[in-house]
């Protein structure tokens, strides 16, 4: 506000301030930095227009081979670790049975091939089997996408935000707001981080990730390194979450030691169509099983057992709406 404006009457100062506050409010939510000087944002420098453009682009469906047009994908490719990335075309619409399951040979991951939860969010009207492709998930718009992701994650997500290990969320962080002590913020963030980080030495210590299940009263943790393939993981998870699917959610609080009726469980699982999904390093929710086990444990940050219907957007749309846990083996 220029000095001239300030010299005007209080009324107009107030209203122009109001406007600014009102406008600021919007800007803040998009992460722009021209709010109060102590304010901070995470996407400073991005103009409103560019934001809109980028987000539109990100949600655009295009026809074309995967890998044909996402420069921003390069960074993501690096995230996938040492796996060698092949440029061979890979038709996402035809995941054959054996590609679904884990295989010892690593997957070919063409750029742009990521079937992210977020990528499918805005697609509904344009979404047909034939047209379904992978639009570029632009890293720069991660925060915008995150907002959408957040809105659509299944209810019951409770613990502190999963953003602790990735760039901060879309809703801009006004400095000092909400008024929560830094100590508390840091402690809660650490609680989240502790489960995500390894001892700092990849490949050595245990790799705990949280596992949640729709409808379960609490989260569990598994050490991914204690399994060598998807089958073992799947079996372990089944055991862990038996009690819930059998309708025994914590009557005593103790986990069910006895798997009363294993066959009943499988039927239940099959009938209810639970799907195993995971959140990767970018914060996107993916179906388990695409990548080789080694790659998977490198990118998996969290696991979630979702009800099949909730997982529709995750991509196995045409062929397999849901996949019972067991068949991952």
């Amino acid at each position, binding site marked *: *506000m220029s*000095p001239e404006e*300030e010299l005007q009457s*209080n*009324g107009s*100062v*107030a209203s122009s*301030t*109001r406007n600014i*506050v*009102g406008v600021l*409010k919007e800007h803040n939510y998009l992460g722009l930095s021209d709010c*109060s*000087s*102590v*304010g901070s944002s995470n996407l400073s420098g991005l103009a409103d227009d560019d934001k809109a453009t980028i987000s539109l682009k990100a949600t655009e469906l295009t026809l074309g081979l995967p890998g044909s047009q996402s420069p921003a994908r390069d960074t993501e490719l690096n995230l996938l670790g040492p796996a060698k990335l092949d440029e061979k075309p890979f038709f996402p619409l035809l995941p054959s049975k054996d590609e679904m399951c884990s295989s010892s040979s690593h997957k070919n991951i063409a750029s742009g091939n990521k079937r992210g939860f977020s990528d499918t969010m805005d697609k509904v009207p344009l979404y047909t089997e034939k047209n379904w492709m992978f639009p570029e998930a632009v890293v720069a718009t991660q925060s915008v996408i995150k*907002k959408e992701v*957040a*809105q*659509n*994650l299944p*209810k*019951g*997500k*409770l*613990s*502190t*935000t999963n*953003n602790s290990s990735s760039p*901060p*969320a879309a*809703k801009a*962080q*006004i*400095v*000092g*707001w*909400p*008024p*929560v*002590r*830094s*100590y*508390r*913020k840091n*402690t*809660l963030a650490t*609680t*989240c981080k*502790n*489960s995500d980080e390894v001892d700092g030495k990849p490949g050595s210590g245990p790799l*705990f990730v949280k596992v949640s299940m729709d409808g379960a*009263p*609490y*989260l569990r*943790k598994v050490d991914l390194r204690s399994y060598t393939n998807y089958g073992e993981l799947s079996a372990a998870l089944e055991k862990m979450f038996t009690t819930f699917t059998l309708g025994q959610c*914590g009557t005593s*609080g*103790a*986990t069910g030691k006895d798997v009363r009726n294993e066959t009943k469980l499988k039927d239940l699982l099959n009938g209810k169509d639970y799907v195993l999904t995971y959140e990767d390093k970018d914060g996107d929710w993916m179906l388990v099983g695409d990548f080789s086990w080694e790659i998977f444990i490198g990118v998996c940050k969290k696991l979630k057992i979702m009800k099949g219907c909730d997982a529709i957007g995750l991509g196995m749309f045409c062929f397999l709406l849901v996949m019972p846990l067991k068949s991952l083996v």
Partner: protein
Amino acid sequence: MNYFPDEVIEHIFDFISSHKDRNSISLVSKSWHKIERCSRKRVFIGNCYAINPERLIQRFPSLRSLTLKGKPHFADFNLVPHEWGGFVHPWIVALAKARVGLEELRLKRMVVSDESLELLSRSFSSFKSLVLVSCEGFTTDGLASVAANCRHLRELDLQENEIDDHRGQWLNCFPESSTALTSLNFSCLKGETNLAALERLVARSPNLESLKVNRAVPLDALTRLMSCAPQLVDLGVGSYENEPDQESFMKLMAAIKKCTELRSLSGFSEVAPLCLTAFYPICQNLTSLNLSYAAEIQGNHLIRFIQFCKRLQRLWILDSIGDKGLEVVASTCKELQELRVFPSDLHDEEDNDTAVTEIGLVAISAGCPKLHSILYFCKQMTNAALITVAKNCPNFIRFRLCILEPNKPDHTTSQSLDEGFGAIVQACKGLRRLSVSGLLTDKVFLYIGMYAEQLEMLSIAFAGDTDKGMLYVLNGCKKMRKLEIRDSPFGNAALLADVDKYRTMRSLWMSSCEVTLGGCKRLARNAPWLNVEIINENENNDVMERNEEDEREKVDRLYLYRTVVGARKDAPPCVTIL
């Protein structure tokens, strides 16, 4: 003229412990002033820069217990630069030099160094109690010197401090002869703990009533600790990610059962739900429960636990408990006096169903007749709800409501929340502390000025329209001591209207408001008994110098406080004292 000899009067004064009362006594007459000051044992200093240690010691030579507060409240939320000040060292130096028989030191938001702690530990042979809240600047080495040298240490209470953990052996430094511990709280330490040393210490401390351990104390160690300290009244547990096996669980439960005196539980920063279950046997005895760090435990599990806690007076919880959970609290905890509901989702993602709303607040107000303090973070609020709350609970002393989204109106009527907060201040005649949020116009401040006669502390953020708002408060609230405002359109007119008002207040904070450098300079000229501090980020310091003449430059952060010792000498470059 006194009718009794001084010693008798002094004896009578001994029964009066409240600081306010003692301050009042000292104003009665010169003689009473003298008797009072010579016999005063406990002194509370709300702003360490309002006075200096030398004058303190001069006035109160018999000082035994000192409480000091340093940084302004908004420092908690990163609004104050790290190097702003609040150093305790000069105080300890002065007290040591004057050979004050210091026994107790309580610090809040101050900078403490290992050097200070070392000096403290060596200078006061009767030292008994050290309480540090939200402090920083020291390491476990400092703690080691306190442990080693304070022979009569009874209380070491570290709450939410930033401590550099050197993973040393500070617990080992308590001599074998140290058996007087009544309270030990090191929950904020981030590193590993020497469990053997801890267990030995607890075992030889029969008077230990309060024990709060840090995350690194595993379940079996906790079990052993509780087994040798069944007299515990207040327990803070560590972090237990994985479910215990059957045997460990049974052992834990057995140890817990023996702690029949246990009244207060906290910690739980990461807890497998089974561990929480182990505390069921003593649930009904609990009067205080802090589960506000238990981010992992889902709502219904929390609810199940709280259902048994019928005697709870104080509950700190995360909003993951949900409105439904609060309804359970309302129907279970009829003795509840203080409730704090913290946000679990600090990035305010919109579709979080498990957060709390006005429904939970109304339920609590209806179900808990003894409620007098509340801190409530929520997504939304309505005037109707606040009006109902005010009717249900006219006894509020502290009412702090934080609607996560700034400027959010009543979500059913889209109006401002003026009427709701107005109802609160009108009904709660004893209200001493208030924090407002949501969409608010000048009107709410009119109400506050009119009705909040006992209000001592007011926190304002993103509220008001014009200077009138702030003026209503300054003119109306006679007992105002601390006023803190951020991101609100109050400017010079309000700031300068009644300079003498600041004599009666401890401090005023204004950040991202409309006050200008010129206004602040004028204030500083008219009120030499105030320290008027301007805080600017470093990058603006150039701007400050260049535009020194530009009095219309808006001030980033303003902090002013009354003082009898003038401008402080330890201000960093980013702080300008006018």
